[in-house]
C-alpha cells in the first residue's frame, strides 16, 4: 500500500536537496588546492535529491496510479476508525513553549517558568488548582536550589529584585 506520507515527505526532501545544491553552487565548491566550503553540502544535496526521487517514484508509475485508485475505493468501503488526537493540546504546548523561550530573558527564568507551569498544568492539562500550585511550587523551588544555588548555572534573573 502506497503511503501518502512518503509522497509529502519526499517532496519536502526534494525541495531541501534542491535548496542545498543551489546554495552550495553560490559558495566556492573547489579551489586550486582542493574542495572548498561548498563541496560537502553540494554532495549531500545531490544525495538527498536522489533518495527523495526514489521515495516519490512509486507514486508516479502507471501501475501505482491504478493501485492508488483501487486503494482509495477500498478505504472508503472499509472506513477504518481514525486515531483520537488532541489538537488543542499539541498546539497549546507548541505555542506556550515558544512563548516561554522568547520571554525568559526579559521576564527571568523563575517568573517565566511559573507562568509556563501555571498555563500548562491548569489551562492545557486541566489539573486542579491544588495540583497546579503544589507541582508548580515544588518544581520552581527545586529548580532554584538545583540550578541557581548548587550548580550555579547562569540563568536570566529578569526583573525580580531580590536576586
Amino acid at each position, binding site marked *: 500500500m502506497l503511503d501518502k506520507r512518503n509522497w509529502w515527505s519526499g517532496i519536502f526532501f526534494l525541495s531541501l536537496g534542491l535548496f542545498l545544491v543551489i546554495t552550495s553552487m553560490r559558495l*566556492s565548491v573547489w579551489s586550486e588546492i*582542493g574542495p572548498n566550503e561548498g563541496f560537502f553540502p553540494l554532495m549531500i544535496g545531490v544525495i*538527498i535529491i536522489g533518495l527523495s526521487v526514489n521515495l516519490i517514484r512509486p507514486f508516479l508509475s502507471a501501475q501505482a496510479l491504478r493501485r492508488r485508485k483501487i486503494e482509495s475505493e477500498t478505504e472508503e468501503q472499509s472506513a477504518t476508525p481514525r486515531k483520537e488526537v488532541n489538537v488543542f*493540546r499539541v498546539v497549546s504546548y507548541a505555542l506556550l513553549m515558544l512563548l516561554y523561550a522568547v520571554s525568559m530573558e526579559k521576564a527571568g527564568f523563575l517568573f517565566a517558568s511559573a507562568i509556563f507551569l501555571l498555563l500548562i498544568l491548569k489551562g492545557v492539562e486541566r489539573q486542579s488548582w491544588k495540583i497546579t500550585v503544589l507541582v508548580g511550587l515544588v518544581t520552581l523551588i527545586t529548580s532554584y536550589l538545583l540550578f541557581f544555588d548548587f550548580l550555579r548555572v547562569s540563568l536570566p534573573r529578569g526583573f525580580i529584585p531580590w536576586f
Partner: protein
Amino acid sequence: MLENLLLGFTISMSLHNVALCFLGCTLGTVIGVLPGLGPAATIAMLLTLTYKLDLTSAIIMLSGIYYGAQYGGTITSVLLKIPGEASTVVTIIDGYQMALQGKAGKALGIAAFGSFIAGTFGTIGLSLLAPPLSEFALLFGPAEYSALMIFGLTLVIYLGSRSLTKAWLMGAFGLALATVGMDPATTVERFTFGSQSLVEGINTAVLAMGLFGIGEILYLAESVEARSKRDAIRCPTRLRELLPDRQDWRRSLLPISRGTILGFFLGILPGGGAIISSFASYAMEKRLSRTPHRFGQGAIEGVAGPESANNSAVSGAFIPLLTLGIPSNVVMALLMGAFMLHGVTPGSFIMKEHSHLFWGVITSMYIGNVILLILNVPLIKIFVKIIEIPYALLSPMIVLICVVGAYSLNNNSVDVVIMLVFGGIGYFMRKFDYEPAPLMLAFVIGDQLEKSVRQSLVISQGSPMIFFNHPISMVLIVGALLMVASSLLKTFIKKRKVLPTAGSIDEAK
C-alpha cells in the same frame, strides 16, 4: 605490572581520594541526568579547584565526573527519552521502549552492571595495553578517519527498523545539519541566515533534546491513545523483580563482552570514537541477533551493548592522553589542561616519571566503577518511580529541564528556540514515520567526516584514490560498500516477493 597496580591502589584507596572519587561520580551522575550541562562544562568550572588539590586527587575527581556523567545520561535516556550525553542517544531506541513496558529497572540495571563490567575490563586494558595501543591511534590519518566515518555512516542501515531510503534520508539530513555554521578552513558562513547564534553551528545537545525530548512531548500531547498507555505503566515494587533476571543476563552477556572490546578500541581514536562506539555496538548486536525484529521494541541487547561500549570507550579515551599527550575529546582536553596547570605535560614519559599519577588515576577508575554501581543500583527503585508520574505533570518538568539545558550552553535563548524548532521537526518525523537515530549519528560524525575528506583530497590533490591507497582506509571503505550492497540486495529480494504482479491488480478490480 602487579607492583604498579598495587602502587596505584595504595594511592587511589586513600580516604581522601576515595571521597573525591565519590564526589566526582555523584556530581557526574547529576550532571549527566541534566541534558545540555555536560561533564565538559562542569570540569571546566572545577578546573581552578585543581590548584587546591594535588594533581592525582584532582584528576581522580574530574575523571569521576566524566564516567559518572555517562551513567547519568543513561537514566534520562531510558526514563524520559532525553539523551543526557550524545553517546547515550542509542540507549533511547530500546531503553525507552523497555521503560514503556514497565521494564525501566531492567534497562537501568543492565546499563549499570554492563558499564561496571566494561569499565573494569577497560581499566585492565588501559593498564596492560596503553603503550602499544597508543601507536595504533597514530596510524590514523585523514584518509583513515574519512573511511572510518563513512563506515560509521553505513551503520544507519541498522539504526532504522523500517525503510532503508528513509534511514539514508535521515543520515543525509544529519550531514546537512552538520554543515551549518562557519567553515573552519575558509571561515565562510554556511546556512546561518545571518544569525550570529548559528555561526558556531548547531549544538549536539540542542538537537538531541529537541528531536527526542520535545518531539516526544508534542507527540504524547497529541496522541490520546499513546498518552493513556504511557500513564498506565507500572513497574514492579521489589528490587529483585526490578533488576535483570537470568534470561536478561543470558541475552546480555555477549553484547556486553562485544561492546566492551569495540568501545575500548574505538575510544582510543580521537574525534568522536567514543560516540561512534555506542552506535557501532548497537548495529553489531542487531546484525548478529537471531531476532533482529526485536530491536527497537525493547530488546535488552540494544541497551547492554551500547552502554558497555560507551563506558569502555571512556577508558580507551585516556590512552592517547596519558601516553601521547593527545586529547581525544573535549573532556580529555580539559583534563590535559589540569595536568599542565600543575606543570606536567602528558606524554610517553608519564608512566616512568610520574608513575604514581599514572597508576593512581588508572586504579581510581576501577574504584569509580564500583562506586557508581553501589550508588546507582539501589537508587533504581527510586528512579523508576519517575516513569509512574502522570505524564500531564511530568511533561512540563521535562520542558523545564530541556530549557535550562539548552539555555545554559551559551546563555542564549536562541538555543532554546532552536531546540523547540527541532522538537517540531522531531514531532513531524514521528508523524511521517522517520526515525531520528540515523540523523543523530550522521550529525555527530558529519563535522569530522567533512574535515577528513577535505584534508584527504587536499593531500591527494583531488584524487579519490587516496582512500584506496591506504590499507586501513581501503578495508573500511570496502567493508562499508559490502554492507550497503548486502542490505540493498536483501531489500530488492524482499520487494520482489511482496510486489503484486499486473495480473493480480486487475483481478482485484
